[in-house]
């Protein structure tokens, strides 16, 4: 079942669980990703209006600075780059295949959907106080009620928008 350069998702997922255990054991850190976007947004805003950022309650709560999680998120990009280069699956791609099949290869529609999707996703994830890593992996692994509740709601929301987007365009 493994295609060229890929591993079974069960195997890769289980190994990533071992990495998570190691992280909690040796460093005391649970996985998460979305707070780093808040910190990055804060760092960008600081360039233009440091005084304003300094008095905003959310940036007082999540201080805009590079921390463990910020480096973790950066590491994800590096790790993916290394893995894809080693297995020969690295490929510069502007438009995903499934999108191109349904909506064509024009850049603008995909850019608009991804950008607006990104705004909604990040607003929602901060309101929920965790993303598929923080709630979905770390929260669920700790048996947190919030983790499972968020995980279910992530998929409900996603199923609504993805199915609306691709509605009526079955090309199989």
């Amino acid at each position, binding site marked *: 079942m493994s295609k060229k350069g890929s*591993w079974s*998702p069960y*195997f*890769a*997922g289980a190994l*990533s669980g071992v*990495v*998570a255990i190691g992280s909690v054991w040796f460093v*005391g*850190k649970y996985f998460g*990703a*979305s707070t780093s*976007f808040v910190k990055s*947004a804060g760092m*960008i805003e600081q360039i233009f209006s440091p005084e304003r950022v300094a008095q*905003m*309650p959310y940036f007082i*709560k999540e201080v805009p600075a590079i*921390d463990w999680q910020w*480096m*973790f998120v950066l*590491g*994800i*990009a*590096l*790790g*993916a780059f290394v*893995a*894809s280069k080693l297995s020969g699956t*690295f490929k*510069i791609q502007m438009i*995903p295949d*499934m*999108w191109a099949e349904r909506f064509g290869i024009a850049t603008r529609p*995909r*850019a*608009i959907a*991804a*950008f607006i*999707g990104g705004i*909604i*996703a*990040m607003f929602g994830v*901060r*309101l*929920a106080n965790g993303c*598929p*890593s923080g709630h979905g*992996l770390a*929260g669920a*692994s700790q*048996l*947190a009620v*919030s983790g499972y*509740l968020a995980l279910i*709601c*992530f998929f409900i*929301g996603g199923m*609504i*928008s993805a199915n609306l987007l691709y509605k009526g365009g079955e090309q199989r």
Partner: protein
Amino acid sequence: MTTLLYGLITGVFFGFLLQKGEVLRYDKQIGALRLQDMTIVKFMLSHIAVAMVGIYLLYDLGIVKLSLKSTILGGVVIGAILFGIGWGLLGYCPGTSLGALGEGRMDALWGIGGMLVGAGIYAEAYPYLQKTVLTWGDYGKITIPQALGINHWIVIVILLLAMLGLFKWFEQKKL
């Protein structure tokens, strides 16, 4: 400084495995939401299966502490559904967007830009949300075993059995 280095190393391992598991692909993420391809669900549940056993073993031995997020119904339910709606448009989540970029998926850049804007908007709205949505149905930092009043290993075994059943079903249906 050491903490930052640990963060980077942990991220590299995680990103490597996300890439190997084909989780960083728009087609796989949207494939799951369209119930056509369960790759990302297999990855996530396998992660949870291993991590929950390891973490609770270490927890019982007094080696690690839990770090729970509050169950605030207003914030978690509304926020997570909103996230899902955005996720269905973007096709990447916050962590996988960076990983997707790492393996050459340039459309993730638009999403990363949108997410930075979304984070900025949230920071503006936070004082208002803190007084409203984030006060609706706050049950605090609770776990499933606490809520049910049973031992955590019972919950873990039930979850493991449920996951195995689901995996078997995925393979039968070739999802």
